[in-house]
């Protein structure tokens, strides 16, 4: 009889019983609704062991890669250790470097007390000793040991203003990783379209590096936008990457362009839709990161243009509600 570990519980799974039923017979309540593998209310994540194939049918590719499955249709055949979807891990981290980039962007380098198991494109939450917490995307490809974060520096931003004054040795707590915006090597020939504004570039930079490292052969288009061309950062790094990979195209877009600067002044959503319209839309994989209104609008328009909903990964950077409060 397989065993099921959940928190401090170790339960025997009776023949043919699901994970949800097993938890319930032990008096453990877990959110659920349809009990038929469709509504996804009872989603869980497997930490050790393998769930049967039909336990994650209908769960999108990114979640499946992370081990997510549906407890109501999962009938374990081997021992499993599972956690809820809200389970998070935490580690201590130390600032090891700080660089100011154009566009009021701080590039912050961190080293963790223990290695962080993340996928390029995911984000973490930084927590200061007084509890102030903010989410930031990692710009590193999968497997990096020294983390690179791109932080937009707001003059009155409680966390970013503090981070701007950090020095090597500054200590923080890091929670995560979170998010489903990452590369899945399920088809090396499919076209990829990555669209980001501001520090939305960070996860996209990580995803592009992961795709290239996986040997992705399909065309990759990275669109990076800002209000003003002077705020576009990391342009040299992107140019170098594109020069070394013929299947990668990098386009910078800004509404106001500095004279003589090689930046497209077409709005970034127009560029994105145009690229999608000339690609094989049914096979296109899209990543959207940055300004929430732009990201949500673009997701809807790309979907209506024929891109399958689950092929669009979106990470809207919603600003903190108390951004201007002095902490």
């Amino acid at each position, binding site marked *: 009889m397989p065993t099921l570990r959940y928190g401090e519980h170790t339960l025997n799974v009776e023949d043919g019983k699901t994970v949800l039923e097993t938890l319930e017979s032990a008096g453990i309540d877990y959110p659920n609704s349809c009990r038929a593998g469709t509504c996804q209310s009872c989603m869980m994540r497997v930490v050790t062991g393998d769930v049967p194939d039909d336990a994650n049918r*209908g769960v999108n590719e990114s979640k499946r890669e992370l081990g997510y499955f549906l407890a109501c249709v999962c009938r374990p055949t081997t021992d499993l250790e599972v956690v809820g979807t809200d389970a998070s891990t935490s580690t201590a981290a130390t600032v090891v470097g700080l660089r100011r980039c154009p566009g009021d962007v701080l590039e912050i380098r961190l080293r963790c007390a223990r290695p962080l198991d993340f996928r390029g494109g995911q984000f973490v939450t930084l927590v200061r000793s007084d509890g102030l917490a903010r989410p930031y995307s990692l710009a590193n490809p999968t497997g990096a040991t020294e983390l690179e974060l791109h932080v937009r520096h707001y003059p009155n931003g409680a966390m970013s203003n503090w981070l701007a004054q950090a020095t090597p040795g500054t200590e923080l707590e890091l929670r995560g990783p979170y998010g489903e915006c990452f590369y899945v090597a399920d088809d090396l020939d499919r076209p990829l379209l990555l669209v980001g504004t501001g520090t939305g570039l960070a996860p996209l930079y990580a995803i592009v590096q992961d795709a290239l490292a996986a040997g992705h052969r399909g065309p990759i288009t990275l669109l990076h936008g800002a209000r003003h061309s002077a705020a576009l950062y990391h342009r040299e790094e992107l140019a170098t990457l594109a020069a070394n990979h013929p299947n990668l195209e990098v386009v910078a877009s800004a509404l106001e362009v500095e004279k003589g600067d090689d930046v497209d002044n077409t709005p970034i959503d127009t560029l994105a839709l145009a690229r999608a319209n000339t690609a094989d839309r049914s096979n296109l994989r899209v990543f959207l990161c940055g300004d929430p209104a732009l990201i949500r609008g673009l997701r809807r328009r790309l979907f209506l243009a024929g891109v399958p909903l689950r092929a669009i990964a979106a990470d809207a950077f919603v600003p903190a509600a108390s951004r201007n409060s002095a902490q």
Partner: protein
Amino acid sequence: MSKSIYEQIGGAPAMDAAVDLFYRKVLSDERVSGFFDDVDMERQAAKQKGFLTMVTGGPNNYTGRNMRDAHAKLVARGLNDSHVDAIIELLGQTLAELGVGEEQIKQVAALAESVRDDVLCRDAAN
């Protein structure tokens, strides 16, 4: 026993494409699209999948209470019979595009009809 409509259109593996088709119609139809302006698209798609699975006879555990809870806010915003009519019409168009015959679309419409009172949060019809 003949195959359920759910099985005919391809069962679980085909549901994502079916939901995409249906959801695009809903978002493109001015009669109902306004109700979908501020929703999380992924969660909405999961709900629509549950609905499509249920009305085509796939595995489900439908409870009217969920349907009521989910629509109570929309009813307060003016959701009424005309919107349910529009959804049932778009559902029919979706199934027709997936190759489902007219007679069977009527059966699906009848099943969808059976949740009308739950969606509109009112007591069983007269």
